[in-house]
Structure formats: C-alpha cells, structure tokens
C-alpha cells in the first residue's frame, strides 16, 4: 500500500528529526547559557540563521547545495538533516529560556550542599527546565510533522507525495486530500494528547 508506506516515512522522518534535533538543541541551549562569549556569539548566529530561514529553503539547501560541495545525501537524508537543524534551533532557544528562567538561588543552594556544576545541572536544573520546556517542545514536534510535507518537493515519498501519486492514478483529489489532512491532524492530536498526559504526570504539586 502506497499510502501506508508514505505514512511510515512521515513518521520516521518526524521522529528522527525531533529526536536528533532535540539532542542537538539541548547542547545549543547549554552553549547559549553557559558558554564563553565567543561560543555564545557563534551559537546565536546559528540559531538566528536557522530561525530566520524558511524551512523550505533549508530543505532545498541541504539537498542541492550540499551535493555541490561534495556531500552526497539521499533526498530522505537531506530532508531529515534540514528538519533536524530547524528543530535544534527551536529547542536551543527554549532550553536557553528555561534554564535562564530558573532562579539563581537554585544553583546557589545546590552549590551550598557541595554539588559540582554537573551534578547541579543533572539533578537540580535539568528536571526543572524539562518541565518548563515540555509544552513548547510538543509544539515544535507538531511543527516538524507539518514541515515534513515539504520533503515531497525533493522527491521523498512521504504521506503527502504518496497521496498525490494515488490521486494521479484515481483522480479522487478531494477524497484523498481530505484523508491525508485527517491523518496529519490525527498524528498531531496524538502528540499533543501524549504531551498533556506527560505534563500532568510530572507536574510539581
């Protein structure tokens, strides 16, 4: 089934981009918060550049420009790379925001009981930051699912392109576009509900 394969690709693209982008984004946020001035400057440029560029352009750049400089990626890989970068810039920004929103007294209290910087980060700051980040992060994940449709432009047969191929054969454009739209809605609905459930579970009394 063409559509099922497409849906599988959409999910695979979204999950890998969100996972990779989040890991990268945490480091971006850390660098923004605790880095030396020069590092913060570079990372700030990175964030601003990625956030200021349309995802569409990012995808085209990863696919066409990288091959010019000798990096040959498949359309799938290039697409995931573009979405990962995009995701990391968003996650970086929200991680930075969450970390700097934690009162400085938390760090001081952690220091005063003899915790090192790493211990302070892992046991005191990160658990608080993650709770704060979660709602915005869920939002970013749904953005990535929607942005994954743009990969159809470079020929990745994800759900949208698979739908268009079916429509090309059957001419049932209204039915199949509606169906695709509904599936995207369902995906994001599940993500949001899951996010809310986790939020409730880990909320601090």
């Amino acid at each position, binding site marked *: 089934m063409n559509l099922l394969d497409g849906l599988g690709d959409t999910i695979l693209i979204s999950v890998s981009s969100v996972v990779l982008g989040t890991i990268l984004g945490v480091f971006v946020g850390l660098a923004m918060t605790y880095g030396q001035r020069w590092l913060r400057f570079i990372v700030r440029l990175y964030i601003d550049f990625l956030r200021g560029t349309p995802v569409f352009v990012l995808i085209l750049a990863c696919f066409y420009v990288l091959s010019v400089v000798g990096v040959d990626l498949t359309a799938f890989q290039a697409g995931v790379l573009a979405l990962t970068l995009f995701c990391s810039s968003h996650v970086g920004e929200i991680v930075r925001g969450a970390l700097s929103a934690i009162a400085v007294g938390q760090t001081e209290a952690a220091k005063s009981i*003899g915790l090192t910087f790493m211990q302070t980060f892992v046991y005191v700051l990160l*658990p608080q930051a993650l709770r704060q980040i979660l709602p915005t992060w869920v939002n970013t994940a749904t953005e990535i699912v929607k942005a994954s449709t743009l990969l159809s432009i470079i020929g990745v047969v994800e759900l949208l392109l698979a739908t268009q191929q079916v429509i090309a054969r059957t001419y049932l454009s209204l039915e199949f576009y509606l169906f695709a739209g509904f599936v995207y809605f369902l995906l994001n609905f599940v993500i949001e509900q899951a996010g809310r459930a986790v939020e409730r579970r880990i909320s601090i009394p």
Partner: protein
Amino acid sequence: MSPILTISGLHKSFGELEVLKGIDLTMQQGDVVSLIGSSGSGKTTLLRCVNLLEDFEKGSIELAGQKIGYREDGAGQRRRLPEREVARQRSMTGMAFQQFNLFPHMTAIRNVMLGLIKTKNMPKDEAREVAQKWLERVGMAARSDHYPGQLSGGQQQRVAIARAIAMNPQIMLFDEVTSALDPELVAEVLAVVRDLAVEGMTMLLVTHEMRFARDVSTKVVFMHQGRIHEEGTPDEIFGAPKTERLQGFLANSEI
C-alpha cells in the same frame, strides 16, 4: 583550641565598588556570631565569601585550619582551586538562604537527601534515615513527603535548614533567614535556630532581628561600609554601644 573560622584581611569588590575593605574575624567552636548593620554594609557578602559563593580578591579564609578557595602557586600567584575542591570545601559549611531555595521538584525529604547521596556518597537508605532524623528535629517529620509548594514559608525554611545541617557542616551560615517570612511565621524558624545554638552549633548569622541576636549570640559584629565598625558581647553592643554610628543604627532598629 584552634579556631573553626579565621578571616583575615578580607577584601572584596564588585567591579569598582569595594564592599569589603579588610575584614578580620575569628570564631571558636560553638560561637554564635551575629552580623548586624544597615543594608549595603557588606554583611551578606561576607557570609557568602565564607562558603565561596562569592570570590574575593585579597585576604584569606581558613575553615577548620584549611585555607579555602585559593592557593598560592610556586611563583606566589593566587589561584582559584579547581571546582571539585571548591565544592568539597563548600560542603564544610551549611547555608540557609533568605529565599529558602528549596528544590521545587523534590519532596522535603528528597531535598535533604540529595546532598547526602551526591556529596557524601551515602547509601540511599542511610540518607533517608539521616534526613528523616533532621526533619524531625526541625519539626517537619510529618511533612517529609510534601513538596515545597505545599508548605508555608516557615515550613520551607525549616526544611532548608535541615537540608543544610544534615550535611554535618563545621559551621552554619544563616542569611537573613526570617526576612522573607510573614511575621507570624518568624518565631517557628527562630526557635529552630535557637535550638541549634543552644546545642553548640557554630553559627554565623546575618540578621535584622535585634532581639534574637541579643538573646542567642556569643558575639555581635556591627558592620558599616565594608568594615567591622564595632564588635563585642551582646550586652556591650546593645547595652553600651560605643560609637555614634552604632548608637544611631540601634536607635533606628526595633529592639
């Protein structure tokens, strides 16, 4: 008896502004020293230097015979000790803060256990026992599974004191621990601090509670513009202040 704390010639600046202009202070085991003075006199900064939350440029602090924070290298250059060493020295002091600073995502008992497990490498069960014991001592045993957000300010501060003192510090530092509390909650926290003093805990307090300072201290230090302006027994300081500055300060404080 060798002193627990020896501060000599301590200087500290924030940029251009010199906030500590040469502080000398010695404390013996069991001493309870209150730092009083108007805001901006440097008393909180002095306290924060003792547990290395603030750097200082000149002078030295010795804790239980050990110079803290810095060492001199071969060329006589002053260098900050590596972070791990600073963290270890910090755990020789306990600090209670004006804003409590409990970790909001942990229950009361977890707050107390964290340092025991991570700094003291205590097994979890033992840490739980020690933590429970100290929560009992500050009258918070029944609330050990509550989160800070479920406790009143006074209760939070008592947990915060338990968290600090469970680490078995050489000296406890109290930074205006009642200033953020509603008036009716002040007494319960002061009672805990008083108990610790009576039991012989060495304590350095910054406080605006003059009556409490008079009751509980073995020595009172009046600071003014980054210097120790006058020091003495509570009776000397409150009963017979020598300098005009101290007289003026006491006249403006509630006793």
